[in-house]
């Protein structure tokens, strides 16, 4: 088992607000790593630092290293656009492109990369939708608008869109928070399946979800990494008092 990411002394700011403090952790390849913590602890910021999305915000700043396949993605000669291409991201609120069809949504990333061949596109679109457990529900009408689907379906469409460009990593920022319980359950099954081929990092405020779906869990509080380890161990035998308080619901 090797590490997909090695985060070293990561700090992040929004203006003068110090959102992440000296985070260091190693994320395992082809596993599901969950990041939990109360609101405002910096978990979304952390995941957005991994694909260099944090820095596009106003007055945002990052320092430290994030080694991806051994190379620091924050090095001066690294092009963030190429980094993001290698990582798929799914957001809290599903954001399919409403002016595009389901097909075009999934193909969006492929067309960016220059894929024009209709047959190739068809193949990849079908494969991605199948991986996202959406194919059977939409295969009869791929020309419908991306926004005409239900919330859970839209989120799976976004996952298909992210998977289509064959990233190495899937970053998910509270992907189920806008979904109903049934859609959430389907999503968790999907996440476990994705872990077979991808490194999955998922932010969640739902501890039970982390306990169910993740191999490893990191607990953040006020921008600091409090505890990090195999999920089972963290939940059953937390080393840190703060962790224990959080998972027993005493705060947050």
């Amino acid at each position, binding site marked *: 088992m090797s590490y997909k990411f090695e985060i070293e002394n990561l700090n992040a700011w929004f203006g003068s607000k110090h959102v992440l403090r000296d985070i260091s952790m190693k994320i395992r390849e082809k596993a599901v790593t969950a990041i939990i913590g109360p609101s405002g602890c910096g978990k979304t910021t952390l995941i957005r630092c991994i694909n260099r999305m944090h820095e596009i915000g106003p007055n945002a700043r990052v320092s430290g290293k994030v080694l991806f396949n051994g190379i620091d993605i924050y090095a001066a000669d690294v092009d963030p656009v*190429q980094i993001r291409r290698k990582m798929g991201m799914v957001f809290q609120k599903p954001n399919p492109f409403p002016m595009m069809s389901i097909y075009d949504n999934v193909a969006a990333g492929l067309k*960016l*990369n*220059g894929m024009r061949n209709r047959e190739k596109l068809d193949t990849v679109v079908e494969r991605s939708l199948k991986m996202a457990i959406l194919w059977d529900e939409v295969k009869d009408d791929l020309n419908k608008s991306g926004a005409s689907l239900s919330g859970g379906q839209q989120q799976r469409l976004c996952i298909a869109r992210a998977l289509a460009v064959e990233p190495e990593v899937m970053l998910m920022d509270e992907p189920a928070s806008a979904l109903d319980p049934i859609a959430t359950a389907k999503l968790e099954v999907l996440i476990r399946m994705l872990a077979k081929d991808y490194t999955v990092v998922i932010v969640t405020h739902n501890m039970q979800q982390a306990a169910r779906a993740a191999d490893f869990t990191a607990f953040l509080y006020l921008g600091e990494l409090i505890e990090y380890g195999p999920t089972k161990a963290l939940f059953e035998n937390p080393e840190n008092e703060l962790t224990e308080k959080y998972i027993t619901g005493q705060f947050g």
Partner: protein
Amino acid sequence: MDHYTVRKIIDRSMRIFAYLALIVALIPLFSIIGEVFLKGVSSVNINFFTQPSPTVGEAGGGVANAIQGTLITVGLASLIGVPLGLISGIFLSEYSEAKISSPIRFFNDVLSGFPSIVVGIFGYALIVRAIGFSVTAAAFALAIIMLPIVTRTTEEAMKLVPATVREAAIALGVPRWRTIVTVVLSGAKKGVATGILLAVARIAGESAPILVTMGYWRWWFAGLNQPVASLTLNIYIFAISPFENWQVLAWGSALVLVMLILGINIIVRAATREKYK
């Protein structure tokens, strides 16, 4: 990664194009303001502000009567257009649930896009045919141009007043109409005032409607049923004339007009800037 390099090149080119478009669009602005100042300043002297328009062949001359005329015309138009627009705006803002308010708003917006010369012809047909080419007809046409602007800005300004303000007054037992006229209106007065100023700046620059309702006039104010001189129309007449001293006056008039209109616009926009922070 060759395709990627192409994408990078396209990205950079399009961004450069966008900034170029911005610069290209601003060049005329600076050219116009620059020329108006450079060419207009030389014509501005004491005569400029005290003499009326010169006759054909007469040297010198000034725009005193044109300034007087413009002030009268704009003032008269505002007398009609501002109250009308104010009340319309109040209605649209406070009673927007009324079924009639949607069509009113729609047609006001439609009117605001009309060619001003067509409004001028309307003024001609209605008023000039009755009392002749006159400042009244011109003011009427300008009032109609002003109306949708004042209506819309008043509505927007009043809508910005929070509902809590209205509710507090009503809870105190103040009737709704009184609330609107005192509390809400005074809360919106800055927005309403800037709207009126912008409308005034707009009609001060109009010349097409003045052409068809008054025509060129080179004397002082001579009665409401007579035309008056107009800065904008003078610019037109003098600019296309073959006389050099007239052309010089055109630039001078333009300078006065530009300073007035741009001055109002700059002040107003600077004052309303905090809205967007």
